[in-house]
């Protein structure tokens, strides 16, 4: 047997993060009890190194690791996004962890491991490694959701996240097994080729497999009717982890969804497109109506994240084609906004408490003017008001749906965006129009969190005013998928 030639360079960014995670773990193990290892500086260094590696890989034109792990323009786009999400989360974390009393090195190890899983998820061109990446991401996040061991809410969130997550992984795996049976391969390209000329039995297996895959991904991106875990988990998990889940997991799951459905299942588009369209409609409607009824800000943002999964699915219907670049662009806008939104709540945490109700943020503009302004920018972008990333992103999403002949999806999306203005702007009104209630109970914004929030707001505004560079990149990435 000849030794296989494997080019490991494409995996370098993921390897850097994994090694950093192990280093933090060891550092924590050899730190005296009761003290926290310096996880944040380690992680920041690792993430920056990984970002440099991504840049160098892009300059080299990507690469391919034995046909299973491919770094093309699509992967590179997501690599940059996911590592950016990681940087913001790590910047937000130290002050939040101290304020809630869970400052431990293992936190950073698990965050880095989940990022490794996300990188794999968007880069895998083979179903075995796809599933392994998904589980690396998920298992780390189950533990992170339950990191606050003294709070029953955190444990409950972890348990609910685990049960729905494992359930969806089971569906996904069963779907993958059926696709393997139908095509005789686990490589996405080979599956796609085999399904182009199916026999009758093969077609039945493949359709069932596609349905199960859709259910699995539906859970991961929190689309209705597979969304019921999202509000509970987003509320109970530590807020920085909620930010990671809403920005990173959603991006990685949509990346994998686009790659699998675009490369392996285009032949079955006629059967999955109507299903995705139906999911998009119910997700947009239920997500937005659910958010209307929430008084807890974390829950409100959770339902908003469900609603945004619906907007994104509306453009996935138009994939493989014009929809992909719209989804890619919107994921960046959406990640920046959600990191900012949850990050702003986390930055104010003090002594285990953080602002969760409208009363808590009343009059925030007079006490924390910069933070209130940033939060207002995020909320306006979530609504989709012009001159924000959200507006540009939604415009491309709905245009993709219209161009693909799904005008009704775009109409519902626009209507639901109008509905969403009510619950987003309610928060802005509370911050700017109301008087503060009682003493100032919240922490001063820590510098590193301030930097993270400023970065997010800058991205939101820059994408709103001048979206061209990211859009060009997204187009390039979308093309590499075809």
């Amino acid at each position, binding site marked *: 047997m000849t*030794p296989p030639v494997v080019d490991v360079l494409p995996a370098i960014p993921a390897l850097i993060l994994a090694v950093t995670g192990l280093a933090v773990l*060891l550092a924590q193990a*050899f730190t005296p009890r009761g003290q926290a290892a310096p996880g944040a500086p380690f992680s920041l260094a690792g993430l920056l190194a990984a970002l440099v590696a991504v840049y160098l890989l892009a300059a080299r034109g990507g690469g391919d690791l034995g046909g299973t792990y491919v770094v093309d323009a699509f992967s590179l786009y997501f690599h940059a996004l996911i590592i950016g999400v990681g940087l913001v989360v790590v910047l937000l974390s130290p002050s939040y962890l101290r304020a809630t009393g869970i400052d431990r090195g293992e936190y950073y190890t698990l965050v880095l491991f989940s990022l490794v899983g996300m990188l794999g998820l968007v880069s895998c061109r083979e179903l075995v490694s796809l599933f392994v990446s998904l589980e690396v991401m998920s298992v780390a996040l189950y533990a992170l959701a339950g990191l606050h061991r003294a709070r029953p809410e955190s444990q409950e969130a972890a348990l609910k996240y685990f049960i729905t997550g494992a359930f969806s992984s089971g569906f996904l795996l069963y779907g993958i097994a059926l696709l393997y049976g139908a095509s005789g391969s686990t490589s996405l390209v080979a599956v796609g080729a085999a399904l182009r000329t199916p026999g009758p039995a093969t077609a039945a297996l493949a359709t069932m497999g596609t349905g199960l895959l859709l259910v699995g991904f539906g859970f991961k991106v929190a689309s209705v009717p597979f969304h019921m875990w999202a509000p509970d988990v987003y509320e109970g998990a530590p807020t920085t982890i909620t930010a990671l889940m809403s920005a990173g997991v959603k991006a990685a799951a949509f990346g994998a969804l686009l790659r699998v459905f675009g490369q392996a299942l285009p032949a079955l588009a006629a059967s999955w497109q109507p299903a995705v369209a139906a999911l998009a409609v119910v997700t947009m409607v239920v997500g937005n109506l659910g958010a209307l009824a929430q008084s807890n800000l974390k829950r409100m943002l959770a339902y908003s994240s469900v609603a945004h999964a619906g907007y994104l699915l509306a453009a996935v219907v138009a994939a493989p084609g014009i929809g992909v670049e719209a989804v890619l662009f919107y994921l960046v806008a959406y990640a920046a906004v959600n990191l900012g939104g949850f990050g702003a709540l986390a930055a104010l945490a003090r002594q285990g408490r953080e602002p969760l109700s409208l009363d808590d943020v009343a009059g925030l503009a007079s006490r924390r003017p910069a933070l209130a302004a940033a939060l207002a920018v995020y909320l306006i972008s979530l609504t989709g008001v012009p001159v924000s990333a959200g507006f540009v992103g939604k415009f491309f999403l709905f245009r993709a749906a219209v161009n693909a002949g799904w005008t009704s999806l775009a109409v519902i999306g626009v209507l639901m965006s109008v509905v969403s203005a009510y619950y987003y702007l309610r928060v802005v009104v509370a911050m700017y129009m109301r008087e503060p209630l009682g003493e100032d109970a919240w922490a001063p914004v820590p510098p590193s969190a301030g930097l993270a929030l400023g970065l997010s707001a800058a991205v939101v505004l820059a994408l709103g005013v001048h979206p061209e560079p990211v859009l060009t990149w997204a187009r390039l990435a979308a093309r590499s998928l075809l």
Partner: protein
Amino acid sequence: MPSAAPSASYLTSHSAILAFLLVVVGFVAVNLVLWKIIRPSRFSEEKLTTYECGENPTGSAWIQFNIRFYVFALLFIIFDVEAVFLLPWAVVFREIGPLAFLEGLVFIAILAIALAYVWRKGDLEWVRTEDRQV
């Protein structure tokens, strides 16, 4: 020896197992039935109690176990199952070459790091050192 045709020897080796199985089942069945017929049967309360190595049984078997059992079980499961990757690797790494050997070492190194972490956390001892100090 990979070149040997597996099917014939494979089947004959199973016939030996079958023979053993028959002998075992037969031995137990014959003894149970035979002594059932021969022995006198006189039951007393003491005879009917659960046998616990000669001790008098106390309480129900459905008690809560010390939580340390679970921690050990979790650690055992994790490290035990990882061995499933090492077995095929050990069989073929010689043929695939140095890269495969290196990959296996990396895998074991990661497990070693995990073991070092568990050891430093004191989870390899029945009473954790840090709990003892408190």
